[in-house]
């Protein structure tokens, strides 16, 4: 079935929904495709807040927010993009309030703000209250509010349509082809549909499911990211993957940095507030990469709790009122998933794979670019976690994921509307569904004797967690590279038992595993090549940042035998790289 539209949005998280809203306001005929229902998107799990220099409680300036973003990203951030992020954060947060978002309020009725990791006043002096929040369900309220507005503006949704291929007209992107639409697998009946459009936004989120312990939803398998790679678009900076310090031990569910923003502290087995040693000024509110490394150091030195691989986060001194009004959800998670009462006991935590700083390269209008010169793939856009604009550089600051998807989702929608007004709709492509139909059919008809999705996926998650985690080194990365290649080979014969066409979730998972394997391959190859330590990429064999050689972005292209790596310049406008201390 062929669906002609003017714009297609793939993914219904914050970035996709805001873009759709802009398109609807401009009267562009738009469809949103999501493999879930929109309200199930992972934006909804963001907890602590969204930073904007409103200055509602103390002096603040967008320049300070920009500086923190650049420094937090260990100077790999593109500063032209960071400036836009910090400036437009203010108007997007205000606009969300106008849309009805139920922010917590100050006594005088303004949007309430709290402290968050790495966000400082006056270029690093000390913590600042910048994170606007709705209890500890800020992402939930953003997702709900944007979906509500999309309903109000009559946006057309195709729920539970999984995008399985991208379409181009006039050749593939590397020969100048333009985006022409997507192919989607309708989960309810297994049919393949084509959606034709002038402008296509990819907003499918992250790919944390390549790790064993992750805060990410099961659905975060990098679908659009891998599809871009397969179509010759490079992936940028995938070696930078953030491990959030405070995940629930063993299962990785996130306990927001807001807990530390409200005064929670980390303790080792001796009861010491160990962050004093690692970040004397910011302490527990140092950026996530530094806190995760500090936790590993403590654990390695035998100061994990009971000598084990976790430490404590202590909230007991915050009292019931703060916990109930400002941190109700995460303390509920602790009760449900750990059986612990956070008012009475400290909470065991360990780092959890959380956020991809890298992804599909874009410019500041959210247009996908395919080389180091910024050559645009006409009609193709990306925003949110799947994109790399790059505002997070080597390490993202807390709340900036939400700021990113709001600011660049909105910019994507506006630019798509302008672009769609200028070009003709692509013509139907003969046999558009054929490549992916054949691919899915091959998996479905393979003898059930082959290996299962679950087996290969578990081995991938293990090697990524154990060899490509918080600390890395050449030998472990080389092993991981070999393992990922082996798994890709074995995945050629992955077999499923479900032969049906209605909600064949096994087939869906097989498809997703292929995406994860491709992105893992790129991640490991990029990490192995980068012989320095910067932000979340910490090499024990190359412990220093090396600006002479490595102040540059990785661009990984699909080659014959694996990723082929090239590099591109970092945009530096206001802040020259300096040593990074907190």
């Amino acid at each position, binding site marked *: 079935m062929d669906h002609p539209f003017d714009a297609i949005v793939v993914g219904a998280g914050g970035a996709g929904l805001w873009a759709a809203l802009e398109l609807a306001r401009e009267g562009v005929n738009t469809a949103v495709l999501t493999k879930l229902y929109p309200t199930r998107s992972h934006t909804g799990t963001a907890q602590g807040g969204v930073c904007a220099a409103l200055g509602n409680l103390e002096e603040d300036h967008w320049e300070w927010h920009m500086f923190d973003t650049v420094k937090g990203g260990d100077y790999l951030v593109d500063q032209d993009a960071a400036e836009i992020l910090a400036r437009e954060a203010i108007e997007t947060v205000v606009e969300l309030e106008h849309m009805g978002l139920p922010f917590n309020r100050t006594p005088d009725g303004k949007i309430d703000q709290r402290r968050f990791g790495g966000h400082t006043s006056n270029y690093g002096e000390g913590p600042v209250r910048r994170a606007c929040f709705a209890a500890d369900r800020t992402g939930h309220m953003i997702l709900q509010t944007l979906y509500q507005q999309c309903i109000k503006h009559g946006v057309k949704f195709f729920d539970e349509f999984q995008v399985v291929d991208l379409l181009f007209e006039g050749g593939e992107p590397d020969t100048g082809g333009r985006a022409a639409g997507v192919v989607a697998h309708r989960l309810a009946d297994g049919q393949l549909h084509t959606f034709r459009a002038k402008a296509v936004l990819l907003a499918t989120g992250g790919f944390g499911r390549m790790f064993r312990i992750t805060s990410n939803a099961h659905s975060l398998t990098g679908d659009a990211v891998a599809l871009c790679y397969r179509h010759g678009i490079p992936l940028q900076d995938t070696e930078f993957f953030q491990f959030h310090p405070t995940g629930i031990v063993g299962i990785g*569910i996130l306990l927001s940095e807001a807990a530390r923003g409200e005064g929670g502290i980390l303790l080792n087995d001796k009861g010491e507030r160990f962050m004093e040693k690692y970040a004397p000024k910011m302490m527990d509110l140092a950026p996530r990469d530094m806190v995760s490394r500090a936790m590993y150091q403590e654990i390695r030195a035998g100061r994990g709790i009971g000598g084990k691989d976790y430490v404590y986060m202590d909230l007991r001194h915050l009292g019931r009122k703060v916990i109930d009004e400002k941190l109700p959800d995460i303390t509920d998670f602790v009760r449900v998933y750990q059986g612990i009462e956070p008012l009475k006991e400290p909470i065991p935590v360990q780092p959890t794979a959380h956020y991809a700083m890298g992804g599909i390269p874009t410019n500041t209008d959210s247009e996908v670019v395919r080389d180091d010169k910024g050559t645009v793939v006409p009609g193709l856009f990306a925003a949110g976690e799947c994109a790399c604009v790059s505002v997070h550089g080597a390490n993202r600051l807390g709340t900036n994921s939400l700021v990113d998807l709001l600011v660049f989702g909105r910019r994507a929608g506006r630019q798509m509307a302008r672009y769609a007004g200028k070009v003709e709709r692509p013509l139907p492509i003969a046999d558009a569904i054929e490549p992916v139909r054949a691919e899915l059919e091959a998996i479905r008809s393979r003898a059930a004797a082959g290996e299962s999705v679950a087996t290969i996926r578990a081995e991938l998650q293990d090697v990524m967690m154990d060899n490509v985690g918080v600390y890395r080194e050449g030998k472990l990365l080389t092993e991981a590279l070999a393992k990922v290649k082996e798994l890709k080979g074995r995945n050629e014969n992955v077999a499923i038992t479900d032969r049906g066409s209605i909600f064949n979730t096994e087939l869906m998972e097989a498809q997703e595993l292929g995406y994860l394997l491709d992105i893992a391959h790129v991640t490991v190859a990029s990490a192995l090549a980068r012989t320095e330590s910067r932000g979340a990429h910490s090499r024990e064999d190359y412990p220093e940042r090396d600006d002479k050689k490595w102040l540059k972005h990785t661009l990984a292209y699909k080659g014959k035998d694996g990723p082929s790596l090239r590099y591109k310049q970092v945009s530096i406008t206001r802040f020259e790289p300096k040593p990074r201390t907190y």
Partner: protein
Amino acid sequence: MEVTLRILRYEPETDKAPHWETYKVAVDPMDRVLDLLIKVKADQDGTLSFRRSCAHGICGSDAMLINNRNRLACRIRVDQLGKKISVAPLPGLPVVKDLIVDMDGFFGKYRSVKPFLINEQPEPERERRQTQEDRARYDDSTKCILCAACTTSCPSFWARPEYVGPAAIVQAHRFIFDSRDEGSAERLEILADEDGVWRCRTIFNCVDACPRGINITRAILEVSSAIVGRHG
């Protein structure tokens, strides 16, 4: 430990009717039912189908009938259920396959109550002000994740599928009691319909079912009172 997990299975392309299948699963008492379903799918039967995403009670994908009560599979632990666990799809909605139900009608009702802020006043340059008391007025109903556990636990909904249902009323409540909203009259008119709030018989199943701890029956009663009081 080992649990006996019974799952109501239905494969529409081959089965005439739903039927129970039994699985033995090795588990940790702190495992959640979702972990069990994932284990069965990985190790015993890859065709088992269910929705899941965030796996910690926020996305609302995995509401199902667990030991005869509507629960999110990712929020209920083995040690809360015992060694015999039964899992079936949410009651009252058409079953598509195994534990997957057709949610379109549910979301249609949600849309019918105008679940968005209505305020046509010119927007100020900065945020609208709202007092902490006014913000607290509708806090409870902002927690809703649209998982459908409440609506599908409601005997009034089972008896009359046209009933708009608790979830949609909670979503309406979220705006009716928001001091910034000007659309209450339209929403109350919709909910004053014969398939609106009056179908509630205060059975409180919805309150038991809600994984977010929302006092749904109270929200429904507050909306009912607002309808009664609107011409007063």
